[in-house]
């Protein structure tokens, strides 16, 4: 928690409101670039700017289960990791959804019609924007911090071979591997691309 005050603090006569910031997130440094450890040739040379990873964190926060939906933190982090692997699978690769290959995580997330939080601007995505995230509740802020942590873990460890997925769905259903509250799988077309190029 950060307590800040705009203007000089004085012992007497200062009766203006004190600004209390509940949410403090350790975002990625906007002046740095980052790489993915143990990345395949397709993404090994790619560098990601802080703003790109911060955008990714907001989408991940919006698309994954929060603590209200999945109580176990380890399970929530697995789900986030699986979603990150989906996004990584789509990096620098055509077909999601057209011939354009995304060269950043932001481009993956902004590809036409792919992620509802982005194309519809869902409350979690808009509420975590740089100008508004400080107003998040403690629980929501914690979920957002988890998303940032999950990306740091992903960058350090690299893609997870057990999470070779290119799609996920919310809710129940028979298809895919359930992690958290989402179901994940690799499409036949994605598998073909993977076997051809990696």
């Amino acid at each position, binding site marked *: 928690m950060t307590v800040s005050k705009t203007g000089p603090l004085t012992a007497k006569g200062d009766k203006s409101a004190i600004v209390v910031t509940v949410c403090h997130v350790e975002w990625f440094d906007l002046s740095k670039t980052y790489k993915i450890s143990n990345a395949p040739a397709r993404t090994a040379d790619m560098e990601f700017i802080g703003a790109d990873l911060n955008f990714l964190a907001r989408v991940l926060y919006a698309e994954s289960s929060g603590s209200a939906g999945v109580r176990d933190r380890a399970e929530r982090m697995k789900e986030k990791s699986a979603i990150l692997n*989906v996004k990584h699978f789509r990096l620098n*690769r*055509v*077909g*999601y*959804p*057209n*011939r354009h290959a995304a060269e950043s995580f932001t481009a993956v997330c902004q*590809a*036409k*019609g*792919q*992620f*509802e*939080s982005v194309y*519809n601007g*869902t409350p979690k995505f808009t509420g975590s924007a740089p100008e508004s995230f400080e107003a998040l509740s403690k629980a929501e802020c914690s979920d957002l911090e988890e998303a940032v942590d999950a990306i740091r873990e992903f960058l350090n460890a690299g893609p997870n071979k057990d999470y070779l997925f*290119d*799609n*996920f*769905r*919310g*809710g129940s*259903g028979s*298809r895919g591997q359930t992690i958290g509250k*989402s*179901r994940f799988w690799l*499409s036949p*077309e*994605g598998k073909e*691309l993977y076997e*051809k*190029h990696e």
Partner: protein
Amino acid sequence: MKSTNRLASIGVILLVGLTIPIGAWAAEVTSAGQPPSFNDFPAPADESMPLTVRLILQSRLARHYKTMIEIQAKAEADFAGHYRVATWGCGTDCRGFAIINKLDGRVYTLPGVQYVAGVMGNDEDRLSYRKDSRLFVMTGRKNDEQEGKFYYVWDGKALKLVCTSPVEKDRLDE
């Protein structure tokens, strides 16, 4: 005089559009080989007011997405005159939907269809519809299974399939 004739023409078009049996259209589509267009199924002008009646959620799917439907029911009609299509995301390139009658609050879903998902190499809108038309087009895979471009016509109570065509895809050879 000219404007009177024009109004009469519009009236005839509307009448024809509203009275052609959907089955007859389906047969016509099959023989002509051309998919229908939005103009083929005009809808009457919207006379709906802001929704004040209680929503009647008629299916399990609609009840499951009650909150999304309630929020979007407040927005203006955007389909077939006085209907609002509520949509929600369900994962990567995935849409669920329900059709809300803004006059009586009834909410309709398409039996057997939970959602429509994307197809690699195709970036068309998964759901296409207009306020001035009763045509409703789904492009992709129904429930991640049956693939196609599905043309439905709204009859006031249900969507009726009138035509199916293949989904156009980009070549993905890298």
